[in-house]
Protein backbone atom coordinates (compact mmCIF):
# COMPACT_ATOMS: atom_id res chain seq x y z
CA UNK A 1 0.00 0.00 0.00
CA UNK A 2 2.63 2.48 1.05
CA UNK A 3 4.42 3.81 -1.97
CA UNK A 4 8.15 3.38 -1.60
CA UNK A 5 9.49 6.65 -2.79
CA UNK A 6 13.27 6.45 -2.89
CA UNK A 7 13.61 10.22 -3.23
CA UNK A 8 11.71 11.01 -0.08
CA UNK A 9 13.52 8.30 1.81
CA UNK A 10 16.89 9.80 0.94
CA UNK A 11 15.68 13.34 1.49
CA UNK A 12 14.60 12.53 5.02
CA UNK A 13 17.41 10.20 5.99
CA UNK A 14 20.47 11.61 4.28
CA UNK A 15 20.77 14.94 6.17
CA UNK A 16 20.25 13.36 9.57
CA UNK A 17 22.66 10.50 8.89
CA UNK A 18 25.26 12.86 7.49
CA UNK A 19 24.84 15.02 10.58
CA UNK A 20 25.13 12.11 12.99
CA UNK A 21 28.23 10.73 11.32
CA UNK A 22 30.14 13.91 10.53
CA UNK A 23 29.13 16.15 13.42
CA UNK A 24 28.58 13.74 16.30
CA UNK A 25 30.52 10.54 15.66
CA UNK A 26 33.57 11.98 13.92
CA UNK A 27 34.34 14.67 16.55
CA UNK A 28 34.07 12.10 19.34
CA UNK A 29 36.29 9.63 17.53
CA UNK A 30 38.78 12.42 16.89
CA UNK A 31 38.81 13.38 20.59
CA UNK A 32 39.24 9.69 21.43
CA UNK A 33 42.26 9.43 19.13
CA UNK A 34 43.63 12.72 20.37
CA UNK A 35 43.65 11.38 23.92
CA UNK A 36 46.33 8.85 22.94
CA UNK A 37 48.66 11.39 21.36
CA UNK A 38 51.30 13.53 23.03
CA UNK A 39 51.63 17.28 23.09
CA UNK A 40 54.77 19.33 22.83
CA UNK A 41 54.66 21.97 25.50
CA UNK A 42 53.74 24.83 23.24
CA UNK A 43 50.46 23.64 21.86
CA UNK A 44 51.55 21.33 19.08
CA UNK A 45 50.41 17.73 18.83
CA UNK A 46 52.90 14.95 18.22
CA UNK A 47 51.65 11.89 16.41
CA UNK A 48 53.22 9.34 18.72
CA UNK A 49 50.97 6.99 20.65
CA UNK A 50 50.91 7.00 24.42
CA UNK A 51 48.76 6.05 27.38
CA UNK A 52 50.37 8.74 29.51
CA UNK A 53 47.39 11.10 29.32
CA UNK A 54 45.25 8.53 31.08
CA UNK A 55 48.03 7.58 33.47
CA UNK A 56 48.44 11.27 34.38
CA UNK A 57 44.81 11.28 35.46
CA UNK A 58 45.62 8.87 38.28
CA UNK A 59 47.82 11.57 39.78
CA UNK A 60 46.76 12.67 43.27
CA UNK A 61 46.18 16.27 42.10
CA UNK A 62 43.61 15.22 39.52
CA UNK A 63 42.01 12.55 41.70
CA UNK A 64 41.38 15.24 44.31
CA UNK A 65 39.94 17.50 41.64
CA UNK A 66 37.64 14.77 40.32
CA UNK A 67 36.42 13.96 43.83
CA UNK A 68 35.81 17.61 44.66
CA UNK A 69 34.02 18.20 41.38
CA UNK A 70 31.78 15.16 41.88
CA UNK A 71 31.06 16.18 45.46
CA UNK A 72 29.97 19.64 44.35
CA UNK A 73 27.77 18.14 41.63
CA UNK A 74 26.30 15.63 44.08
CA UNK A 75 25.53 18.22 46.73
CA UNK A 76 23.98 20.49 44.10
CA UNK A 77 21.83 17.61 42.83
CA UNK A 78 20.77 16.71 46.36
CA UNK A 79 19.77 20.30 47.17
CA UNK A 80 17.83 20.49 43.89
CA UNK A 81 15.94 17.33 44.90
CA UNK A 82 15.18 18.75 48.36
CA UNK A 83 13.75 21.91 46.84
CA UNK A 84 12.03 20.35 43.83
CA UNK A 85 10.22 17.44 45.52
CA UNK A 86 8.07 19.40 47.98
CA UNK A 87 7.62 22.11 45.36
CA UNK A 88 6.20 19.80 42.68
CA UNK A 89 4.08 17.88 45.19
CA UNK A 90 2.49 21.10 46.46
CA UNK A 91 2.01 22.40 42.94
CA UNK A 92 0.45 19.14 41.74
CA UNK A 93 -2.30 19.59 44.33
CA UNK A 94 -3.40 22.86 42.71
CA UNK A 95 -6.09 23.37 40.10
CA UNK A 96 -5.08 22.70 36.51
CA UNK A 97 -4.92 26.32 35.44
CA UNK A 98 -2.86 27.33 38.50
CA UNK A 99 -0.53 24.42 37.79
CA UNK A 100 -0.02 25.62 34.24
CA UNK A 101 0.69 29.18 35.33
CA UNK A 102 3.18 28.07 38.00
CA UNK A 103 5.03 25.74 35.65
CA UNK A 104 5.22 28.44 32.99
CA UNK A 105 6.62 30.87 35.54
CA UNK A 106 9.28 28.32 36.47
CA UNK A 107 10.44 28.53 32.86
CA UNK A 108 10.75 32.34 32.86
CA UNK A 109 14.17 32.66 34.49
CA UNK A 110 15.26 29.97 32.07
CA UNK A 111 14.44 32.33 29.21
CA UNK A 112 16.64 35.17 30.41
CA UNK A 113 20.37 35.01 30.05
CA UNK A 114 21.86 32.68 32.67
CA UNK A 115 25.05 34.74 33.01
CA UNK A 116 23.25 37.94 33.81
CA UNK A 117 21.25 36.08 36.45
CA UNK A 118 24.49 34.75 37.90
CA UNK A 119 25.78 38.31 38.01
CA UNK A 120 22.60 39.23 39.87
CA UNK A 121 23.75 36.89 42.64
CA UNK A 122 27.14 38.59 42.74
CA UNK A 123 25.46 41.98 43.16
CA UNK A 124 23.29 40.52 45.91
CA UNK A 125 25.85 38.51 47.82
CA UNK A 126 29.28 40.10 47.60
CA UNK A 127 30.72 41.69 50.75
CA UNK A 128 29.40 45.12 49.89
CA UNK A 129 26.36 43.59 48.21
CA UNK A 130 22.68 44.15 48.90
CA UNK A 131 22.22 41.28 51.38
CA UNK A 132 25.28 42.06 53.50
CA UNK A 133 24.51 45.78 53.57
CA UNK A 134 20.94 45.06 54.58
CA UNK A 135 21.95 42.66 57.37
CA UNK A 136 24.56 45.09 58.64
CA UNK A 137 22.04 47.94 58.69
CA UNK A 138 19.74 45.77 60.78
CA UNK A 139 22.68 44.95 63.07
CA UNK A 140 22.14 41.24 62.49
CA UNK A 141 25.80 40.82 61.62
CA UNK A 142 28.79 42.94 62.55
CA UNK A 143 31.07 42.10 59.64
CA UNK A 144 30.05 40.99 56.14
CA UNK A 145 29.61 37.29 55.39
CA UNK A 146 31.49 35.67 52.52
CA UNK A 147 28.65 34.09 50.59
CA UNK A 148 30.43 33.84 47.28
CA UNK A 149 33.91 33.15 45.93
CA UNK A 150 33.94 29.83 47.79
CA UNK A 151 32.31 26.38 47.54
CA UNK A 152 29.01 27.76 48.78
CA UNK A 153 28.97 30.24 45.90
CA UNK A 154 29.56 27.51 43.33
CA UNK A 155 26.86 25.25 44.75
CA UNK A 156 24.41 28.15 44.94
CA UNK A 157 25.13 28.98 41.29
CA UNK A 158 24.68 25.37 40.19
CA UNK A 159 21.43 24.89 42.13
CA UNK A 160 20.09 28.16 40.82
CA UNK A 161 20.92 27.52 37.19
CA UNK A 162 19.92 23.87 37.13
CA UNK A 163 16.85 23.75 39.39
CA UNK A 164 14.34 23.97 36.48
CA UNK A 165 15.91 20.82 34.98
CA UNK A 166 14.99 18.98 38.17
CA UNK A 167 11.55 20.53 38.61
CA UNK A 168 10.26 19.76 35.11
CA UNK A 169 10.76 15.96 34.89
CA UNK A 170 9.85 15.54 38.56
CA UNK A 171 6.66 17.51 38.08
CA UNK A 172 5.50 15.43 35.15
CA UNK A 173 6.22 12.27 37.18
CA UNK A 174 4.45 13.45 40.35
CA UNK A 175 1.52 14.86 38.42
CA UNK A 176 0.84 11.41 36.93
CA UNK A 177 0.39 9.68 40.31
CA UNK A 178 -3.17 8.68 40.99
CA UNK A 179 -4.29 11.03 43.77
CA UNK A 180 -6.63 8.39 45.25
CA UNK A 181 -3.64 6.18 46.08
CA UNK A 182 -2.16 8.96 48.18
CA UNK A 183 -5.49 9.59 49.89
CA UNK A 184 -5.84 5.89 50.62
CA UNK A 185 -2.43 5.91 52.22
CA UNK A 186 -3.46 8.75 54.53
CA UNK A 187 -6.74 7.00 55.29
CA UNK A 188 -4.80 3.95 56.42
CA UNK A 189 -3.04 6.14 58.95
CA UNK A 190 0.25 6.79 57.17
CA UNK A 191 2.12 9.96 58.03
CA UNK A 192 3.15 12.41 55.32
CA UNK A 193 6.72 11.14 55.47
CA UNK A 194 5.70 7.51 55.17
CA UNK A 195 3.42 8.32 52.26
CA UNK A 196 6.22 10.23 50.62
CA UNK A 197 8.78 7.44 50.92
CA UNK A 198 6.43 4.49 50.39
CA UNK A 199 4.14 5.84 47.68
CA UNK A 200 5.50 8.94 45.97
CA UNK A 201 9.21 8.16 45.69
CA UNK A 202 8.80 4.63 44.24
CA UNK A 203 6.29 5.89 41.68
CA UNK A 204 8.44 8.81 40.58
CA UNK A 205 11.89 7.27 40.69
CA UNK A 206 12.36 7.45 36.94
CA UNK A 207 11.53 11.17 36.87
CA UNK A 208 13.79 11.66 39.87
CA UNK A 209 16.71 9.97 38.16
CA UNK A 210 16.00 11.87 34.96
CA UNK A 211 16.13 15.19 36.82
CA UNK A 212 19.24 14.12 38.73
CA UNK A 213 21.04 13.31 35.48
CA UNK A 214 20.05 16.65 33.98
CA UNK A 215 21.48 18.43 37.03
CA UNK A 216 24.48 16.25 37.85
CA UNK A 217 26.05 16.05 34.39
CA UNK A 218 26.01 19.79 33.61
CA UNK A 219 27.18 20.53 37.15
CA UNK A 220 30.45 18.73 36.38
CA UNK A 221 31.07 20.83 33.30
CA UNK A 222 29.70 24.32 33.99
CA UNK A 223 33.06 26.02 34.24
CA UNK A 224 31.62 29.52 34.05
CA UNK A 225 29.78 29.14 37.36
CA UNK A 226 33.03 28.13 39.06
CA UNK A 227 34.82 31.00 37.32
CA UNK A 228 32.30 33.62 38.35
CA UNK A 229 31.14 32.47 41.79
CA UNK A 230 34.09 30.36 42.93
CA UNK A 231 36.73 33.07 42.57
CA UNK A 232 38.77 31.20 39.96
CA UNK A 233 40.36 29.30 42.81
CA UNK A 234 38.79 25.91 42.85
CA UNK A 235 38.66 23.99 39.63
CA UNK A 236 35.94 21.66 38.46
CA UNK A 237 36.49 19.04 35.80
CA UNK A 238 34.94 21.55 33.40
CA UNK A 239 37.59 24.12 34.28
CA UNK A 240 40.32 21.52 33.90
CA UNK A 241 39.16 20.68 30.37
CA UNK A 242 38.76 24.34 29.47
CA UNK A 243 42.25 25.14 30.72
CA UNK A 244 43.83 22.28 28.80
CA UNK A 245 42.22 23.48 25.59
CA UNK A 246 42.34 27.23 26.02
CA UNK A 247 45.42 28.01 28.06
CA UNK A 248 47.57 25.08 29.09
CA UNK A 249 47.99 24.06 25.43
CA UNK A 250 47.71 20.36 26.24
CA UNK A 251 44.90 19.15 24.00
CA UNK A 252 45.63 15.41 24.33
CA UNK A 253 45.35 15.57 28.13
CA UNK A 254 42.16 17.63 27.86
CA UNK A 255 40.84 15.00 25.45
CA UNK A 256 41.62 12.22 27.91
CA UNK A 257 39.72 14.04 30.67
CA UNK A 258 36.79 14.54 28.28
CA UNK A 259 36.70 10.88 27.28
CA UNK A 260 36.66 9.83 30.94
CA UNK A 261 33.78 12.21 31.50
CA UNK A 262 31.88 10.77 28.52
CA UNK A 263 32.37 7.25 29.87
CA UNK A 264 31.04 8.26 33.29
CA UNK A 265 28.04 9.89 31.59
CA UNK A 266 27.31 6.76 29.57
CA UNK A 267 27.48 4.72 32.77
CA UNK A 268 24.92 6.95 34.47
CA UNK A 269 22.63 6.80 31.42
CA UNK A 270 22.85 2.97 31.46
CA UNK A 271 21.69 2.96 35.09
CA UNK A 272 18.85 5.29 34.14
CA UNK A 273 17.76 2.88 31.40
CA UNK A 274 18.03 -0.06 33.82
CA UNK A 275 15.53 1.47 36.22
CA UNK A 276 13.13 1.94 33.32
CA UNK A 277 13.91 5.44 32.08
CA UNK A 278 13.21 6.27 28.46
CA UNK A 279 15.88 8.08 26.48
CA UNK A 280 13.30 10.31 24.82
CA UNK A 281 12.31 11.73 28.20
CA UNK A 282 15.81 13.12 28.75
CA UNK A 283 15.81 16.70 27.62
CA UNK A 284 12.39 16.29 26.04
CA UNK A 285 10.81 18.53 28.64
Amino acid at each position, binding site marked *: MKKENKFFKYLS*LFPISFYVIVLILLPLIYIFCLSFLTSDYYGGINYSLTLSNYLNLVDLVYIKLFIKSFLIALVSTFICICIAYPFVI*FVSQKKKIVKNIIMTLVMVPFL*TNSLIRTYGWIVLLRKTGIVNTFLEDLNVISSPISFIYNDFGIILGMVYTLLPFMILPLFSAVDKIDKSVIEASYDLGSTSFKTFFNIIVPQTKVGLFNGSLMVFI*PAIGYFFIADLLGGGKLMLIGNLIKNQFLSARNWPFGAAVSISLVLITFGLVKIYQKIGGKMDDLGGF
Partner: protein
Amino acid sequence: MKKSLKNIFIFLVFLFLFLPIIVLVIFSFNSSELNIVFENFTLNWYINLFDNRELIEAFSNTIIIAIVSTIISVIIGTLGAIGLHKYDFAFKNVINKLLYIPIVIPEIVLGISLLSIYTLFKLELSIYTILLSHIVFSIPFVVVSVRSAISNNVDVLENASYDLGASNFQTLFYVTLPSILSGVKSGALLSFTLSLDDVIISYFTAGPSSNTLPLKIYSMIKTGITPDVYALSTILLLVVFIVLTISILVQMRSIRRNSI
Protein backbone atom coordinates in the same frame (compact mmCIF):
# COMPACT_ATOMS: atom_id res chain seq x y z
CA MET B 1 0.69 20.15 56.29
CA LYS B 2 -1.27 23.38 56.24
CA LYS B 3 -2.15 24.87 52.93
CA SER B 4 -0.67 28.26 53.83
CA LEU B 5 2.69 26.66 54.64
CA LYS B 6 2.70 24.97 51.25
CA ASN B 7 1.96 28.25 49.57
CA ILE B 8 4.77 29.92 51.49
CA PHE B 9 7.15 27.23 50.29
CA ILE B 10 6.07 27.73 46.68
CA PHE B 11 6.51 31.47 47.12
CA LEU B 12 10.03 31.01 48.55
CA VAL B 13 11.09 28.88 45.61
CA PHE B 14 9.86 31.61 43.29
CA LEU B 15 11.67 34.22 45.32
CA PHE B 16 14.86 32.21 44.90
CA LEU B 17 14.32 31.88 41.15
CA PHE B 18 13.39 35.53 40.61
CA LEU B 19 15.56 37.41 43.10
CA PRO B 20 18.50 38.03 40.74
CA ILE B 21 16.08 39.00 37.99
CA ILE B 22 14.37 41.55 40.23
CA VAL B 23 17.81 42.96 41.04
CA LEU B 24 18.69 43.42 37.40
CA VAL B 25 15.37 45.07 36.59
CA ILE B 26 15.75 47.51 39.49
CA PHE B 27 19.36 48.33 38.70
CA SER B 28 18.54 49.01 35.06
CA PHE B 29 16.90 52.22 36.34
CA ASN B 30 19.82 53.17 38.58
CA SER B 31 21.86 56.27 37.77
CA SER B 32 25.05 54.86 39.33
CA GLU B 33 27.16 52.53 37.26
CA LEU B 34 28.59 50.61 40.21
CA ASN B 35 25.59 48.39 41.11
CA ILE B 36 26.22 48.84 44.80
CA VAL B 37 23.46 51.14 45.98
CA PHE B 38 20.42 52.50 44.23
CA GLU B 39 21.05 56.22 43.76
CA ASN B 40 18.56 57.88 41.44
CA PHE B 41 15.90 56.76 39.01
CA THR B 42 16.94 57.18 35.38
CA LEU B 43 15.90 55.95 31.95
CA ASN B 44 19.25 56.85 30.43
CA TRP B 45 20.46 53.27 30.11
CA TYR B 46 17.47 52.50 27.91
CA ILE B 47 17.93 55.65 25.84
CA ASN B 48 21.68 55.14 25.36
CA LEU B 49 21.40 51.42 24.77
CA PHE B 50 21.88 51.77 21.03
CA ASP B 51 25.13 53.69 21.41
CA ASN B 52 26.82 50.55 22.71
CA ARG B 53 27.77 49.18 19.29
CA GLU B 54 29.36 45.98 20.50
CA LEU B 55 26.40 45.10 22.67
CA ILE B 56 23.92 45.69 19.86
CA GLU B 57 26.05 43.74 17.41
CA ALA B 58 26.38 40.85 19.85
CA PHE B 59 22.65 40.94 20.39
CA SER B 60 21.80 40.87 16.69
CA ASN B 61 24.34 38.06 16.14
CA THR B 62 22.63 36.09 18.87
CA ILE B 63 19.18 36.58 17.38
CA ILE B 64 20.35 35.72 13.85
CA ILE B 65 22.13 32.58 15.06
CA ALA B 66 19.10 31.52 17.11
CA ILE B 67 16.65 32.00 14.23
CA VAL B 68 18.78 30.40 11.51
CA SER B 69 19.94 27.49 13.66
CA THR B 70 16.35 26.84 14.72
CA ILE B 71 15.07 26.83 11.14
CA ILE B 72 17.79 24.51 9.91
CA SER B 73 17.57 22.13 12.87
CA VAL B 74 13.80 21.99 12.63
CA ILE B 75 13.99 21.07 8.93
CA ILE B 76 16.69 18.41 9.36
CA GLY B 77 15.29 17.16 12.67
CA THR B 78 11.68 16.88 11.53
CA LEU B 79 12.54 15.15 8.25
CA GLY B 80 14.91 12.88 10.16
CA ALA B 81 12.34 11.96 12.78
CA ILE B 82 9.80 11.11 10.08
CA GLY B 83 12.36 9.13 8.08
CA LEU B 84 13.60 7.24 11.09
CA HIS B 85 10.03 6.36 11.96
CA LYS B 86 8.99 5.27 8.47
CA TYR B 87 11.94 3.42 7.03
CA ASP B 88 14.10 0.56 8.15
CA PHE B 89 17.74 0.40 7.20
CA ALA B 90 20.96 -1.19 8.29
CA PHE B 91 22.29 1.35 10.78
CA LYS B 92 19.01 2.77 11.99
CA ASN B 93 19.60 1.65 15.56
CA VAL B 94 23.08 3.11 15.63
CA ILE B 95 21.87 6.45 14.27
CA ASN B 96 19.07 6.50 16.82
CA LYS B 97 21.49 5.87 19.67
CA LEU B 98 24.10 8.36 18.51
CA LEU B 99 21.42 11.05 18.33
CA TYR B 100 21.21 11.08 22.13
CA ILE B 101 24.87 11.93 22.55
CA PRO B 102 24.54 15.73 22.29
CA ILE B 103 21.68 15.59 24.80
CA VAL B 104 23.51 13.61 27.46
CA ILE B 105 27.21 14.43 27.28
CA PRO B 106 28.45 17.53 29.11
CA GLU B 107 28.27 20.57 26.84
CA ILE B 108 31.94 21.27 27.37
CA VAL B 109 32.88 17.95 25.75
CA LEU B 110 30.70 18.76 22.75
CA GLY B 111 32.30 22.21 22.63
CA ILE B 112 35.89 21.01 22.62
CA SER B 113 35.20 18.15 20.19
CA LEU B 114 33.64 20.58 17.71
CA LEU B 115 36.53 23.00 18.18
CA SER B 116 38.99 20.17 17.49
CA ILE B 117 37.17 19.14 14.35
CA TYR B 118 37.05 22.72 13.06
CA THR B 119 40.77 23.02 13.70
CA LEU B 120 41.41 19.69 12.01
CA PHE B 121 39.50 20.74 8.89
CA LYS B 122 41.00 24.25 9.02
CA LEU B 123 37.58 25.88 9.24
CA GLU B 124 37.88 29.52 10.16
CA LEU B 125 36.19 30.22 13.49
CA SER B 126 33.43 32.71 12.80
CA ILE B 127 29.72 33.27 13.15
CA TYR B 128 29.25 30.24 10.85
CA THR B 129 31.08 27.87 13.17
CA ILE B 130 28.87 29.03 16.05
CA LEU B 131 25.81 28.58 13.85
CA LEU B 132 26.88 25.07 12.86
CA SER B 133 27.58 24.16 16.48
CA HIS B 134 24.16 25.38 17.57
CA ILE B 135 22.57 23.28 14.85
CA VAL B 136 24.55 20.31 16.16
CA PHE B 137 23.14 20.52 19.68
CA SER B 138 19.61 21.51 18.58
CA ILE B 139 18.79 18.70 16.11
CA PRO B 140 18.49 15.89 18.69
CA PHE B 141 16.03 17.95 20.75
CA VAL B 142 13.91 18.52 17.65
CA VAL B 143 14.01 14.82 16.73
CA VAL B 144 12.96 13.82 20.26
CA SER B 145 10.04 16.22 20.44
CA VAL B 146 8.82 15.44 16.90
CA ARG B 147 9.08 11.72 17.59
CA SER B 148 6.87 12.08 20.67
CA ALA B 149 4.19 13.58 18.43
CA ILE B 150 4.34 10.82 15.81
CA SER B 151 1.80 8.24 16.93
CA ASN B 152 0.29 5.23 15.24
CA ASN B 153 -2.58 7.47 14.36
CA VAL B 154 -0.30 9.29 11.94
CA ASP B 155 0.51 6.02 10.15
CA VAL B 156 -3.18 5.28 9.69
CA LEU B 157 -3.86 8.75 8.35
CA GLU B 158 -0.88 8.58 6.01
CA ASN B 159 -1.98 5.23 4.63
CA ALA B 160 -5.45 6.63 4.05
CA SER B 161 -3.91 9.56 2.22
CA TYR B 162 -1.87 7.24 -0.02
CA ASP B 163 -4.94 5.10 -0.68
CA LEU B 164 -6.77 8.19 -1.84
CA GLY B 165 -3.98 8.73 -4.35
CA ALA B 166 -2.00 11.53 -2.71
CA SER B 167 1.67 11.83 -3.58
CA ASN B 168 4.42 11.60 -1.02
CA PHE B 169 4.82 15.34 -0.76
CA GLN B 170 1.10 16.00 -0.63
CA THR B 171 0.90 13.51 2.20
CA LEU B 172 3.87 15.12 3.97
CA PHE B 173 2.46 18.65 3.80
CA TYR B 174 -1.24 17.99 4.22
CA VAL B 175 -1.30 14.95 6.50
CA THR B 176 1.96 14.22 8.29
CA LEU B 177 3.16 17.71 9.16
CA PRO B 178 -0.17 19.03 10.49
CA SER B 179 -0.59 16.03 12.76
CA ILE B 180 2.90 16.36 14.29
CA LEU B 181 2.85 20.15 14.41
CA SER B 182 2.79 20.33 18.20
CA GLY B 183 6.04 18.34 18.35
CA VAL B 184 7.66 20.51 15.70
CA LYS B 185 6.62 23.65 17.57
CA SER B 186 7.98 22.54 20.92
CA GLY B 187 11.20 21.34 19.26
CA ALA B 188 11.60 24.73 17.62
CA LEU B 189 10.93 26.58 20.86
CA LEU B 190 13.44 24.40 22.68
CA SER B 191 16.21 24.85 20.14
CA PHE B 192 15.57 28.59 19.96
CA THR B 193 15.91 29.05 23.73
CA LEU B 194 18.93 26.74 23.92
CA SER B 195 20.67 28.71 21.20
CA LEU B 196 19.76 32.07 22.74
CA ASP B 197 21.38 31.27 26.07
CA ASP B 198 24.28 29.07 25.05
CA VAL B 199 27.59 30.02 26.65
CA ILE B 200 29.75 26.95 26.69
CA ILE B 201 29.60 25.75 23.10
CA SER B 202 29.79 29.27 21.67
CA TYR B 203 32.74 29.95 23.95
CA PHE B 204 34.79 27.29 22.21
CA THR B 205 33.63 27.84 18.65
CA ALA B 206 33.52 31.65 18.38
CA GLY B 207 35.92 33.57 16.18
CA PRO B 208 37.09 37.18 16.34
CA SER B 209 34.15 38.79 14.58
CA SER B 210 31.45 36.72 16.19
CA ASN B 211 30.56 37.90 19.64
CA THR B 212 27.20 36.65 20.88
CA LEU B 213 25.28 38.25 23.73
CA PRO B 214 26.12 35.52 26.28
CA LEU B 215 29.82 35.71 25.33
CA LYS B 216 29.76 39.51 25.54
CA ILE B 217 28.13 39.34 28.96
CA TYR B 218 30.64 36.71 30.09
CA SER B 219 33.55 38.98 29.26
CA MET B 220 31.75 41.97 30.79
CA ILE B 221 31.03 40.21 34.08
CA LYS B 222 34.74 40.02 34.67
CA THR B 223 35.36 43.70 34.04
CA GLY B 224 32.06 44.89 35.48
CA ILE B 225 28.65 44.95 33.84
CA THR B 226 27.22 48.31 32.85
CA PRO B 227 23.51 48.87 33.46
CA ASP B 228 22.75 49.07 29.73
CA VAL B 229 23.09 45.27 29.70
CA TYR B 230 20.42 45.19 32.42
CA ALA B 231 18.27 47.47 30.31
CA LEU B 232 18.57 45.12 27.33
CA SER B 233 17.79 42.11 29.53
CA THR B 234 14.79 43.87 31.04
CA ILE B 235 13.39 44.55 27.57
CA LEU B 236 13.89 40.89 26.62
CA LEU B 237 12.24 39.81 29.85
CA LEU B 238 9.26 42.00 29.08
CA VAL B 239 8.91 40.38 25.66
CA VAL B 240 9.07 36.90 27.23
CA PHE B 241 6.42 37.90 29.79
CA ILE B 242 4.06 39.23 27.14
CA VAL B 243 4.40 36.07 25.04
CA LEU B 244 3.85 33.84 28.08
CA THR B 245 0.86 35.81 29.30
CA ILE B 246 -0.76 35.47 25.90
CA SER B 247 -0.10 31.73 25.87
CA ILE B 248 -1.58 31.36 29.36
CA LEU B 249 -4.66 33.35 28.35
CA VAL B 250 -5.09 31.11 25.31
CA GLN B 251 -4.77 28.04 27.55
CA MET B 252 -7.37 29.43 29.99
CA ARG B 253 -9.81 30.01 27.18
CA SER B 254 -9.39 26.52 25.79
CA ILE B 255 -9.82 25.00 29.26
CA ARG B 256 -12.98 27.03 29.80
CA ARG B 257 -14.30 26.04 26.40
CA ASN B 258 -13.62 22.39 27.11
CA SER B 259 -15.43 22.54 30.42
CA ILE B 260 -18.59 23.97 28.88
